[in-house]
């Protein structure tokens, strides 16, 4: 199910994120806001260094702090994960979107949103396996990372990759990135096969769940029932019912009551 990327596999661009190299400096968050001219958000300290607490309409990417006990003198540590749209090949958002052109795919495989076409139905917000698209009540539109498609189209790399001081965010040809990550000894290339291939992948050395990623991301089964079962029932059921009535009328005609003429009904 889903819309396939109509370019050869080699032409696709992607991110390979190495969470082990991330220091949570959050320069990527700032660079993203800077390039996309997104305002800062006023948040409250809830006892975590993680800020802002979640993706929101003006935050397309953020570092998630997955805190865990270390049982040493420090007590705790973190697994950092760069959260953003993962630009799935089998993109649930594109499957459920009712407005043509609101979510489209670039030749490099990125899923980009066109605010002029977005009708604010929130279908993508509620069905994305990674809970990425955010609804902006002020504009009644969704917002999400577009992988700096404007920069990429002009031969630049995305702003977050450009700023990353540790090399945790690698941008380039998808196949090369996968080969590099495999040779680096990563235990799992998250996104190589998931949802027919993500365009933001993670070179993980810990189970995906520890990073707060779904172990086996899938298009929700409800979307399958919605788009593959019930939608065709509407699409076929209505014209077939019209056909059935026409056939019935052809053979039986109208049900005329003959009592009006003193006879019996037929």
């Amino acid at each position, binding site marked *: 199910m889903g819309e396939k990327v109509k370019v050869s596999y080699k032409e696709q661009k992607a991110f390979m994120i190495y969470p082990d190299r991330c220091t949570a400096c959050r320069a990527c968050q700032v660079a993203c806001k800077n390039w996309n001219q997104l305002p800062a958000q006023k948040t409250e300290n809830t006892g975590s260094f993680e800020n802002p607490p979640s993706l929101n309409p003006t935050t397309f990417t953020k570092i998630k702090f997955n805190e865990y006990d270390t049982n040493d003198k420090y007590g705790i540590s973190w697994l950092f994960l760069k959260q953003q749209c993962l630009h799935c090949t089998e993109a649930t958002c594109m499957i*459920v979107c*009712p*407005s*043509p052109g609101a979510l489209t795919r670039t030749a490099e495989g990125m899923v980009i949103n066109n605010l002029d076409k977005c*009708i*604010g*139905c*929130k*279908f993508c*917000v*509620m*069905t994305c396996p990674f*809970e990425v698209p955010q*609804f902006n009540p002020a504009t*009644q539109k969704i917002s999400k990372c577009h992988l700096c498609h404007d920069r990429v189209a002009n031969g630049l790399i995305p702003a977050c990759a450009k700023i990353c001081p540790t090399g945790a965010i690698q941008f380039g040809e998808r196949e090369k990135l996968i080969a590099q990550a495999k040779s680096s000894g990563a235990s799992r290339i998250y996104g190589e096969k998931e949802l027919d291939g993500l365009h933001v992948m993670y070179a993980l050395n810990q189970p995906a769940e520890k990073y707060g990623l779904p172990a086996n991301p899938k298009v*929700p089964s*409800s*979307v399958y*029932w*919605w788009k593959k*079962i*019930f*939608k065709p*029932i*509407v*699409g076929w*059921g*209505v014209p077939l*019912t*019209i056909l059935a*009535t026409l056939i*019935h*009328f052809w053979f*039986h005609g*109208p*049900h*005329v*009551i003959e*009592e*009006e003429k*003193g006879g*019996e*009904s*037929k």
Partner: protein
Amino acid sequence: MNRVNIDKLPPDTYITNASTPLERITHWGLAGSCIILFITGAGFMFRSLNIIQRILAFVPGGAKTVHHTFAIVFIISLVLALLVWGKDCIFNLEDIKWFKVLGGYVIRTDQHFDLGKFNPGQKIFTWYCIGFGIAISITGYIMYTPFDFARSTVQISYPIHALCAAAFGIGWLGHWYLGAWANPGSVASITSGRARLAWCKHHRPKWLRKMQKEGKLKIAK
């Protein structure tokens, strides 16, 4: 009290209160909102029908606003339908005979049935509309305010809403065919409330007797 003897009236006499004004408002409120909701909903479901969204682009908020607005008309009409017709749509023993030959609607028969205001097919359709109507209203509300509900609840609402839409699309066509096109004389009973005496004797004899007994029949030539 307006007592009339239906047996002495000519068959081309009209009964003018075959439906009450409230019934007609309820019926057309449901029918109108249902059609608009189905068309606008189809515009969301099928990208090939995106023209519906483009046509309604002049409305602030577009087809979505139209869909949400008529959903309110639909829900009010649905509640009225339950109140107005619920009691008349309780099944009885006479209905079993009707079911055995499906009222002679699919395969025509000359058999007569001592039916009240609604035949069992109409009763089924009323409960069908009320059942799917409640489901489509609840899921629609969840889709309208998704952040008030769990993601899993919202996700399951989408296919249920689509299933109900299929039920209404198909059910409405069947209703229109049997209630209007294939059965001349039936439409007037729900548009003007007028129905020929012969039509009433055939379709709702028990109701006719009851109305006569209670002196509630209104007639016109």
